[in-house]
Protein backbone atom coordinates (compact mmCIF):
# COMPACT_ATOMS: atom_id res chain seq x y z
CA UNK A 1 0.00 0.00 0.00
CA UNK A 2 1.53 3.31 -0.99
CA UNK A 3 -0.20 5.35 1.71
CA UNK A 4 -1.20 8.98 1.32
CA UNK A 5 1.59 11.02 -0.22
CA UNK A 6 3.92 8.06 -0.46
CA UNK A 7 5.22 6.67 -3.70
CA UNK A 8 4.84 3.07 -4.85
CA UNK A 9 8.09 1.19 -5.46
CA UNK A 10 8.78 -1.11 -8.42
CA UNK A 11 11.50 -3.70 -8.92
CA UNK A 12 12.80 -3.24 -12.46
CA UNK A 13 16.20 -4.92 -12.40
CA UNK A 14 18.06 -7.73 -10.68
CA UNK A 15 21.57 -9.14 -10.98
CA UNK A 16 23.61 -11.64 -9.02
CA UNK A 17 26.98 -13.31 -8.65
CA UNK A 18 26.48 -16.34 -6.42
CA UNK A 19 27.72 -19.84 -5.86
CA UNK A 20 24.71 -20.97 -7.93
CA UNK A 21 25.91 -19.02 -10.98
CA UNK A 22 26.66 -15.58 -12.35
CA UNK A 23 23.59 -14.99 -14.51
CA UNK A 24 19.85 -15.25 -13.99
CA UNK A 25 19.33 -18.29 -16.23
CA UNK A 26 22.02 -20.39 -14.55
CA UNK A 27 20.89 -19.39 -11.06
CA UNK A 28 17.26 -20.08 -11.99
CA UNK A 29 18.03 -23.58 -13.23
CA UNK A 30 20.05 -24.32 -10.08
CA UNK A 31 17.11 -23.23 -7.91
CA UNK A 32 14.63 -25.22 -9.97
CA UNK A 33 16.73 -28.38 -10.13
CA UNK A 34 18.21 -28.16 -6.64
CA UNK A 35 21.83 -27.80 -7.70
CA UNK A 36 24.06 -26.92 -4.75
CA UNK A 37 26.87 -24.35 -4.84
CA UNK A 38 28.64 -25.72 -1.76
CA UNK A 39 32.06 -27.40 -1.72
CA UNK A 40 34.82 -28.59 0.59
CA UNK A 41 37.79 -26.17 0.64
CA UNK A 42 40.97 -28.25 1.11
CA UNK A 43 42.89 -25.19 2.36
CA UNK A 44 40.50 -24.84 5.28
CA UNK A 45 41.09 -28.48 6.14
CA UNK A 46 44.85 -27.94 6.19
CA UNK A 47 44.54 -24.77 8.26
CA UNK A 48 42.62 -26.48 11.05
CA UNK A 49 39.10 -25.27 10.40
CA UNK A 50 36.45 -27.24 12.24
CA UNK A 51 34.41 -27.15 8.99
CA UNK A 52 35.93 -26.80 5.51
CA UNK A 53 32.53 -26.31 3.86
CA UNK A 54 31.92 -23.12 1.89
CA UNK A 55 30.11 -21.63 -1.07
CA UNK A 56 32.33 -20.97 -4.06
CA UNK A 57 32.11 -18.42 -6.89
CA UNK A 58 33.04 -20.09 -10.17
CA UNK A 59 33.85 -18.86 -13.68
CA UNK A 60 33.76 -15.17 -12.78
CA UNK A 61 36.00 -12.93 -14.87
CA UNK A 62 37.17 -9.93 -12.81
CA UNK A 63 38.63 -8.32 -15.92
CA UNK A 64 35.28 -6.72 -16.65
CA UNK A 65 37.07 -3.85 -14.89
CA UNK A 66 40.61 -2.63 -15.49
CA UNK A 67 43.41 -3.37 -13.07
CA UNK A 68 43.44 0.29 -12.03
CA UNK A 69 39.70 0.20 -11.31
CA UNK A 70 40.08 -3.00 -9.32
CA UNK A 71 42.98 -1.66 -7.27
CA UNK A 72 40.55 -0.06 -4.81
CA UNK A 73 38.10 -2.98 -4.84
CA UNK A 74 38.02 -6.27 -2.96
CA UNK A 75 36.67 -9.19 -4.98
CA UNK A 76 33.17 -8.85 -3.59
CA UNK A 77 32.99 -5.22 -4.75
CA UNK A 78 33.82 -6.39 -8.29
CA UNK A 79 31.06 -8.98 -7.93
CA UNK A 80 28.74 -6.18 -6.79
CA UNK A 81 29.67 -4.14 -9.86
CA UNK A 82 28.92 -7.11 -12.15
CA UNK A 83 25.54 -7.67 -10.51
CA UNK A 84 24.72 -3.95 -10.69
CA UNK A 85 25.72 -3.78 -14.35
CA UNK A 86 23.44 -6.74 -15.12
CA UNK A 87 20.57 -5.34 -13.06
CA UNK A 88 20.78 -1.96 -14.79
CA UNK A 89 20.86 -3.64 -18.20
CA UNK A 90 17.74 -5.65 -17.31
CA UNK A 91 16.06 -2.47 -16.08
CA UNK A 92 16.89 -0.78 -19.36
CA UNK A 93 18.55 2.14 -17.58
CA UNK A 94 21.34 3.86 -19.49
CA UNK A 95 24.19 5.88 -18.01
CA UNK A 96 22.30 9.08 -18.73
CA UNK A 97 19.31 7.80 -16.70
CA UNK A 98 21.32 7.21 -13.52
CA UNK A 99 24.01 9.89 -13.52
CA UNK A 100 21.90 12.37 -11.59
CA UNK A 101 21.07 13.29 -8.01
CA UNK A 102 17.82 11.28 -8.03
CA UNK A 103 19.69 7.96 -8.30
CA UNK A 104 21.20 6.40 -5.20
CA UNK A 105 23.31 3.48 -4.06
CA UNK A 106 22.67 1.53 -0.86
CA UNK A 107 24.32 -1.82 -0.15
CA UNK A 108 24.59 -4.07 2.86
CA UNK A 109 28.14 -5.00 3.81
CA UNK A 110 29.68 -5.72 7.19
CA UNK A 111 33.34 -6.62 6.59
CA UNK A 112 36.31 -6.35 4.29
CA UNK A 113 38.87 -8.63 5.84
CA UNK A 114 41.57 -9.15 3.21
CA UNK A 115 42.63 -5.52 2.87
CA UNK A 116 43.08 -5.23 6.62
CA UNK A 117 45.41 -8.23 6.56
CA UNK A 118 47.29 -7.24 3.40
CA UNK A 119 47.99 -3.67 4.50
CA UNK A 120 49.50 -4.82 7.78
CA UNK A 121 51.57 -7.48 5.98
CA UNK A 122 52.81 -4.88 3.46
CA UNK A 123 53.83 -2.47 6.21
CA UNK A 124 55.73 -5.18 8.07
CA UNK A 125 57.43 -6.30 4.85
CA UNK A 126 58.42 -2.87 3.52
CA UNK A 127 58.92 -0.99 6.76
CA UNK A 128 57.07 2.15 5.66
CA UNK A 129 53.44 3.05 5.16
CA UNK A 130 53.92 4.35 1.62
CA UNK A 131 54.81 0.81 0.67
CA UNK A 132 51.22 -0.29 1.34
CA UNK A 133 49.99 1.16 -1.95
CA UNK A 134 47.07 3.37 -2.85
CA UNK A 135 44.23 0.87 -3.00
CA UNK A 136 44.11 -0.73 0.44
CA UNK A 137 42.43 2.11 2.31
CA UNK A 138 39.51 2.02 -0.13
CA UNK A 139 39.39 -1.78 -0.09
CA UNK A 140 39.44 -2.00 3.69
CA UNK A 141 36.28 -0.02 4.51
CA UNK A 142 32.86 -1.61 4.88
CA UNK A 143 31.58 1.12 2.54
CA UNK A 144 33.93 -0.10 -0.18
CA UNK A 145 31.07 -1.34 -2.37
CA UNK A 146 29.11 1.90 -2.51
CA UNK A 147 32.15 4.19 -2.76
CA UNK A 148 33.55 2.19 -5.68
CA UNK A 149 30.22 1.75 -7.48
CA UNK A 150 29.62 5.48 -7.15
CA UNK A 151 32.83 6.29 -9.02
CA UNK A 152 32.17 3.60 -11.64
CA UNK A 153 28.47 4.24 -12.28
CA UNK A 154 28.68 8.00 -11.57
CA UNK A 155 25.37 8.20 -9.75
CA UNK A 156 24.95 11.46 -7.84
CA UNK A 157 22.38 10.73 -5.11
CA UNK A 158 22.43 8.69 -1.91
CA UNK A 159 25.62 6.69 -1.47
CA UNK A 160 26.21 4.67 1.66
CA UNK A 161 26.53 1.17 3.03
CA UNK A 162 24.65 -0.41 5.86
CA UNK A 163 26.07 -2.84 8.40
CA UNK A 164 23.77 -5.08 10.41
CA UNK A 165 25.43 -8.49 10.20
CA UNK A 166 23.35 -11.06 8.31
CA UNK A 167 20.40 -8.74 7.83
CA UNK A 168 22.52 -6.04 6.12
CA UNK A 169 21.21 -6.81 2.63
CA UNK A 170 17.60 -6.94 3.79
CA UNK A 171 17.80 -3.61 5.58
CA UNK A 172 19.60 -2.06 2.59
CA UNK A 173 16.69 -2.94 0.32
CA UNK A 174 14.15 -1.81 2.88
CA UNK A 175 15.81 1.55 3.43
CA UNK A 176 16.30 2.02 -0.31
CA UNK A 177 12.57 1.47 -0.78
CA UNK A 178 11.85 3.97 1.99
CA UNK A 179 13.96 6.61 0.23
CA UNK A 180 11.77 6.17 -2.84
CA UNK A 181 8.49 5.96 -0.91
CA UNK A 182 9.32 9.24 0.81
CA UNK A 183 10.21 10.98 -2.45
CA UNK A 184 13.90 11.39 -1.54
CA UNK A 185 15.14 9.36 -4.54
CA UNK A 186 13.55 8.30 -7.82
CA UNK A 187 15.57 5.10 -8.06
CA UNK A 188 18.08 3.27 -5.91
CA UNK A 189 20.55 0.61 -6.97
CA UNK A 190 20.69 -1.53 -3.85
CA UNK A 191 21.79 -4.93 -2.65
CA UNK A 192 24.32 -6.77 -0.58
CA UNK A 193 27.85 -8.11 -0.96
CA UNK A 194 29.76 -10.73 0.98
CA UNK A 195 33.38 -11.83 0.96
CA UNK A 196 33.99 -15.57 0.85
CA UNK A 197 37.67 -15.98 1.78
CA UNK A 198 38.74 -18.24 4.65
CA UNK A 199 40.40 -15.34 6.45
CA UNK A 200 37.05 -13.68 7.06
CA UNK A 201 35.47 -16.92 8.27
CA UNK A 202 38.05 -18.44 10.64
CA UNK A 203 36.78 -16.82 13.85
CA UNK A 204 33.18 -17.66 12.93
CA UNK A 205 34.28 -21.27 12.37
CA UNK A 206 35.77 -21.17 15.86
CA UNK A 207 32.31 -20.65 17.35
CA UNK A 208 31.31 -24.13 16.19
CA UNK A 209 28.38 -22.74 14.21
CA UNK A 210 29.24 -24.38 10.87
CA UNK A 211 27.99 -27.75 9.67
CA UNK A 212 30.51 -30.57 9.81
CA UNK A 213 28.60 -32.87 7.45
CA UNK A 214 31.54 -32.83 5.03
CA UNK A 215 30.93 -36.15 3.28
CA UNK A 216 28.36 -34.58 0.99
CA UNK A 217 28.52 -30.78 0.82
CA UNK A 218 25.24 -30.69 -1.15
CA UNK A 219 23.29 -32.06 1.83
CA UNK A 220 25.26 -30.43 4.65
CA UNK A 221 23.01 -27.40 5.00
CA UNK A 222 19.62 -28.64 6.23
CA UNK A 223 17.36 -25.72 7.19
CA UNK A 224 14.53 -26.65 9.57
CA UNK A 225 15.48 -30.35 9.36
CA UNK A 226 15.82 -32.37 12.54
CA UNK A 227 19.38 -33.35 11.53
CA UNK A 228 20.66 -29.81 10.93
CA UNK A 229 24.00 -29.14 12.60
CA UNK A 230 25.05 -25.68 11.47
CA UNK A 231 25.34 -23.26 8.59
CA UNK A 232 27.69 -23.26 5.60
CA UNK A 233 29.36 -19.88 4.96
CA UNK A 234 29.02 -18.47 1.48
CA UNK A 235 29.02 -15.16 -0.37
CA UNK A 236 28.80 -13.19 -3.59
CA UNK A 237 26.85 -10.07 -4.49
CA UNK A 238 23.24 -9.29 -5.33
CA UNK A 239 21.72 -6.13 -6.80
CA UNK A 240 18.12 -4.97 -7.07
CA UNK A 241 17.08 -1.84 -8.97
CA UNK A 242 14.17 -0.15 -7.20
CA UNK A 243 12.32 2.68 -8.91
CA UNK A 244 9.39 4.95 -8.30
CA UNK A 245 6.56 2.91 -9.76
CA UNK A 246 4.97 5.73 -11.75
CA UNK A 247 8.29 6.71 -13.35
CA UNK A 248 9.07 3.10 -14.25
CA UNK A 249 5.63 2.82 -15.87
CA UNK A 250 6.11 6.11 -17.73
CA UNK A 251 9.34 4.99 -19.32
CA UNK A 252 7.82 1.66 -20.31
CA UNK A 253 10.04 -0.47 -18.08
CA UNK A 254 9.17 -4.10 -17.44
CA UNK A 255 8.05 -4.20 -13.82
CA UNK A 256 9.31 -7.39 -12.23
CA UNK A 257 7.53 -6.90 -8.92
CA UNK A 258 6.22 -4.32 -6.50
CA UNK A 259 7.97 -3.67 -3.21
CA UNK A 260 5.09 -3.40 -0.73
CA UNK A 261 6.51 -3.42 2.75
CA UNK A 262 9.59 -3.22 4.94
CA UNK A 263 9.54 -4.12 8.61
CA UNK A 264 12.43 -4.03 11.03
CA UNK A 265 12.99 -4.87 14.66
CA UNK A 266 15.73 -5.75 17.07
CA UNK A 267 15.76 -8.31 19.84
CA UNK A 268 17.42 -6.37 22.63
CA UNK A 269 18.52 -9.66 24.13
CA UNK A 270 21.52 -11.79 23.15
CA UNK A 271 24.37 -11.58 20.65
CA UNK A 272 24.02 -14.95 18.98
CA UNK A 273 20.70 -16.46 20.06
CA UNK A 274 17.61 -14.99 18.34
CA UNK A 275 14.66 -14.04 20.52
CA UNK A 276 11.20 -15.61 20.60
CA UNK A 277 9.48 -12.55 19.15
CA UNK A 278 12.00 -10.26 17.38
CA UNK A 279 11.61 -11.55 13.85
CA UNK A 280 7.84 -11.83 14.19
CA UNK A 281 7.64 -8.13 15.07
CA UNK A 282 9.53 -7.32 11.86
CA UNK A 283 7.26 -9.62 9.84
CA UNK A 284 4.10 -8.07 11.30
CA UNK A 285 5.40 -4.57 10.63
CA UNK A 286 6.22 -5.42 6.99
CA UNK A 287 2.83 -7.04 6.45
CA UNK A 288 1.07 -4.06 8.01
CA UNK A 289 2.92 -1.62 5.76
CA UNK A 290 2.10 -3.76 2.72
CA UNK A 291 -1.64 -3.40 3.33
CA UNK A 292 -2.05 -7.15 2.95
CA UNK A 293 -3.53 -9.59 5.40
CA UNK A 294 -1.08 -12.24 6.60
CA UNK A 295 -3.29 -14.87 4.96
CA UNK A 296 -2.55 -13.32 1.55
CA UNK A 297 1.17 -14.15 1.77
CA UNK A 298 1.59 -17.31 -0.33
CA UNK A 299 5.35 -17.81 -0.04
CA UNK A 300 7.84 -17.14 2.72
CA UNK A 301 11.53 -17.11 1.81
CA UNK A 302 12.98 -17.98 5.19
CA UNK A 303 16.22 -16.77 6.68
CA UNK A 304 16.82 -20.28 8.10
CA UNK A 305 20.56 -20.96 8.02
CA UNK A 306 20.50 -24.53 9.38
CA UNK A 307 21.64 -23.79 12.92
CA UNK A 308 19.75 -25.65 15.64
CA UNK A 309 18.79 -22.57 17.66
CA UNK A 310 18.34 -20.09 14.80
CA UNK A 311 15.95 -22.21 12.74
CA UNK A 312 13.88 -23.11 15.78
CA UNK A 313 13.61 -19.44 16.72
CA UNK A 314 12.53 -18.45 13.20
CA UNK A 315 10.00 -21.28 13.12
CA UNK A 316 8.53 -20.06 16.39
CA UNK A 317 8.38 -16.50 15.06
CA UNK A 318 6.67 -17.68 11.87
CA UNK A 319 4.07 -19.60 13.91
CA UNK A 320 3.47 -16.43 15.98
CA UNK A 321 2.56 -14.55 12.79
CA UNK A 322 0.76 -17.22 10.76
CA UNK A 323 -0.54 -19.63 13.39
CA UNK A 324 -1.02 -23.19 12.18
CA UNK A 325 -1.60 -22.15 8.56
CA UNK A 326 1.69 -20.90 7.21
CA UNK A 327 2.45 -19.93 3.61
CA UNK A 328 4.63 -22.19 1.51
CA UNK A 329 8.12 -21.89 2.99
CA UNK A 330 11.54 -22.65 1.61
CA UNK A 331 15.04 -21.90 2.84
CA UNK A 332 17.33 -21.41 -0.13
CA UNK A 333 20.47 -21.57 2.00
CA UNK A 334 20.26 -25.34 1.61
CA UNK A 335 21.69 -24.71 -1.89
CA UNK A 336 23.53 -21.41 -1.49
CA UNK A 337 24.87 -21.66 2.02
CA UNK A 338 24.58 -18.58 4.19
CA UNK A 339 25.42 -15.53 2.12
CA UNK A 340 25.62 -13.47 5.31
CA UNK A 341 25.68 -9.69 4.56
CA UNK A 342 24.36 -10.40 1.06
CA UNK A 343 21.64 -12.87 2.00
CA UNK A 344 18.69 -10.52 2.55
CA UNK A 345 19.22 -8.97 -0.89
CA UNK A 346 19.97 -12.32 -2.53
CA UNK A 347 16.63 -13.70 -1.31
CA UNK A 348 14.81 -10.96 -3.23
CA UNK A 349 16.84 -11.69 -6.36
CA UNK A 350 16.19 -15.45 -6.05
CA UNK A 351 12.49 -14.91 -5.44
CA UNK A 352 12.24 -12.55 -8.41
CA UNK A 353 14.00 -15.13 -10.58
CA UNK A 354 11.41 -17.72 -9.51
CA UNK A 355 8.55 -15.34 -10.32
CA UNK A 356 10.08 -14.60 -13.73
CA UNK A 357 10.83 -18.23 -14.55
CA UNK A 358 7.57 -19.67 -13.22
CA UNK A 359 8.31 -21.88 -10.22
CA UNK A 360 8.90 -21.82 -6.50
CA UNK A 361 12.08 -23.50 -5.31
CA UNK A 362 11.94 -26.32 -2.80
CA UNK A 363 13.55 -26.24 0.62
CA UNK A 364 16.18 -28.88 -0.04
CA UNK A 365 17.58 -31.31 2.51
CA UNK A 366 14.46 -31.09 4.67
CA UNK A 367 13.19 -34.52 5.65
CA UNK A 368 11.49 -34.07 8.99
CA UNK A 369 10.98 -31.36 11.57
CA UNK A 370 11.94 -31.51 15.20
CA UNK A 371 9.97 -30.07 18.09
CA UNK A 372 11.32 -26.59 17.40
CA UNK A 373 10.63 -26.46 13.68
CA UNK A 374 7.33 -28.28 13.51
CA UNK A 375 4.15 -26.76 12.12
CA UNK A 376 5.59 -25.15 8.96
CA UNK A 377 4.38 -25.74 5.40
CA UNK A 378 7.85 -26.46 4.03
CA UNK A 379 8.09 -27.04 0.29
CA UNK A 380 9.82 -30.35 -0.34
CA UNK A 381 9.53 -30.30 -4.13
CA UNK A 382 9.85 -27.59 -6.72
CA UNK A 383 6.40 -26.07 -7.06
CA UNK A 384 5.23 -25.10 -10.58
CA UNK A 385 3.20 -22.30 -8.99
CA UNK A 386 5.45 -19.21 -8.83
CA UNK A 387 5.57 -16.90 -5.80
CA UNK A 388 2.81 -14.28 -5.72
CA UNK A 389 2.79 -12.31 -2.47
CA UNK A 390 6.09 -12.94 -0.73
CA UNK A 391 7.68 -12.34 2.65
CA UNK A 392 11.50 -12.43 2.82
CA UNK A 393 13.14 -12.70 6.25
CA UNK A 394 16.68 -11.98 7.35
CA UNK A 395 18.18 -11.80 10.80
CA UNK A 396 21.63 -10.91 12.07
CA UNK A 397 23.94 -11.29 15.04
CA UNK A 398 22.92 -9.04 17.86
CA UNK A 399 19.27 -9.64 17.02
CA UNK A 400 18.60 -7.26 14.12
CA UNK A 401 15.72 -8.36 11.90
CA UNK A 402 14.44 -7.39 8.47
CA UNK A 403 11.28 -8.50 6.70
CA UNK A 404 10.29 -7.47 3.19
CA UNK A 405 6.94 -7.93 1.42
CA UNK A 406 6.96 -8.10 -2.36
CA UNK A 407 4.17 -8.71 -4.82
CA UNK A 408 4.74 -10.48 -8.12
CA UNK A 409 1.12 -10.66 -9.20
Amino acid at each position, binding site marked *: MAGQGLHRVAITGIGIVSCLGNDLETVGSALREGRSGLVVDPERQELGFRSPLTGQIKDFDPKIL*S*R*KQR*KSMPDFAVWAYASARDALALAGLADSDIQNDQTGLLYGCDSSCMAAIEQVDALRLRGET*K*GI*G*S*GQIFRSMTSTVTMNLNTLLKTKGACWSLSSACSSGGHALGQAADLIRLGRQERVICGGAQEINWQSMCSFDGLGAFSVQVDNPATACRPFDADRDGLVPSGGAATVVLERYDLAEQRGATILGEFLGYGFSSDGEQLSVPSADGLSRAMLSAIEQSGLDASEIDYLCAHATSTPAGDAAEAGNIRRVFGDKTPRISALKALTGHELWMSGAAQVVYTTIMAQQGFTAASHNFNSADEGTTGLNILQKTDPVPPGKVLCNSAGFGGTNSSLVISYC
Partner: protein
Amino acid sequence: MTEAEIIELIDSSLAEEFELDREDMVPSANLYTDLELDSLDTVDMVIVLEGAFEFKIREEEAVRAIRTLEDIHRFVITKIEQNN
Protein backbone atom coordinates in the same frame (compact mmCIF):
# COMPACT_ATOMS: atom_id res chain seq x y z
CA MET B 1 72.53 -0.84 -17.29
CA THR B 2 72.41 1.61 -20.21
CA GLU B 3 70.08 4.59 -20.28
CA ALA B 4 68.02 2.85 -22.95
CA GLU B 5 67.68 -0.22 -20.73
CA ILE B 6 66.67 1.95 -17.77
CA ILE B 7 64.03 3.73 -19.83
CA GLU B 8 62.70 0.42 -21.14
CA LEU B 9 62.43 -1.00 -17.63
CA ILE B 10 60.62 2.13 -16.42
CA ASP B 11 58.18 2.10 -19.32
CA SER B 12 57.47 -1.63 -19.20
CA SER B 13 56.96 -1.56 -15.42
CA LEU B 14 54.58 1.39 -15.60
CA ALA B 15 52.76 -0.11 -18.58
CA GLU B 16 52.11 -3.30 -16.63
CA GLU B 17 51.08 -1.58 -13.40
CA PHE B 18 48.73 0.95 -14.99
CA GLU B 19 47.69 -1.04 -18.09
CA LEU B 20 49.07 1.67 -20.35
CA ASP B 21 49.31 1.40 -24.12
CA ARG B 22 52.99 1.52 -25.04
CA GLU B 23 52.18 3.63 -28.10
CA ASP B 24 50.95 6.40 -25.81
CA MET B 25 54.11 6.32 -23.71
CA VAL B 26 56.11 8.93 -25.55
CA PRO B 27 58.63 10.87 -23.43
CA SER B 28 56.58 14.05 -23.57
CA ALA B 29 53.40 12.31 -22.40
CA ASN B 30 51.89 14.08 -19.37
CA LEU B 31 51.15 11.49 -16.70
CA TYR B 32 47.89 13.10 -15.72
CA THR B 33 46.41 14.62 -18.87
CA ASP B 34 47.77 12.17 -21.46
CA LEU B 35 48.14 8.88 -19.56
CA GLU B 36 45.19 9.58 -17.22
CA LEU B 37 46.97 8.74 -13.98
CA ASP B 38 45.95 10.48 -10.77
CA SER B 39 47.56 11.45 -7.49
CA LEU B 40 46.81 8.01 -6.00
CA ASP B 41 48.67 6.39 -8.87
CA THR B 42 51.85 8.27 -7.95
CA VAL B 43 51.83 6.34 -4.65
CA ASP B 44 51.91 3.10 -6.60
CA MET B 45 54.36 4.51 -9.17
CA VAL B 46 56.91 4.95 -6.39
CA ILE B 47 56.39 1.33 -5.26
CA VAL B 48 56.77 0.10 -8.86
CA LEU B 49 60.00 2.05 -9.42
CA GLU B 50 61.43 0.98 -6.06
CA GLY B 51 60.68 -2.63 -6.94
CA ALA B 52 62.11 -2.41 -10.46
CA PHE B 53 65.36 -0.69 -9.49
CA GLU B 54 65.77 -1.87 -5.90
CA PHE B 55 66.29 1.60 -4.45
CA LYS B 56 64.32 3.69 -2.00
CA ILE B 57 62.76 6.94 -3.15
CA ARG B 58 62.99 9.55 -0.40
CA GLU B 59 62.80 12.63 -2.62
CA GLU B 60 59.11 13.29 -2.11
CA GLU B 61 59.37 16.89 -3.38
CA ALA B 62 61.07 15.71 -6.56
CA VAL B 63 58.41 13.03 -7.11
CA ARG B 64 55.65 15.61 -6.69
CA ALA B 65 57.31 17.75 -9.38
CA ILE B 66 57.18 14.95 -11.95
CA ARG B 67 54.78 15.71 -14.79
CA THR B 68 55.92 13.78 -17.86
CA LEU B 69 57.26 10.34 -18.60
CA GLU B 70 60.57 11.98 -19.48
CA ASP B 71 60.63 13.52 -15.97
CA ILE B 72 60.48 9.97 -14.57
CA HIS B 73 63.26 8.81 -16.89
CA ARG B 74 65.49 11.69 -15.78
CA PHE B 75 64.63 11.22 -12.12
CA VAL B 76 65.52 7.52 -12.17
CA ILE B 77 68.69 7.95 -14.27
CA THR B 78 69.93 10.69 -11.94
CA LYS B 79 69.15 8.59 -8.90
CA ILE B 80 71.03 5.58 -10.29
CA GLU B 81 74.02 7.80 -11.12
CA GLN B 82 74.00 9.23 -7.59
CA ASN B 83 73.86 5.76 -6.07
CA ASN B 84 76.82 4.69 -8.16
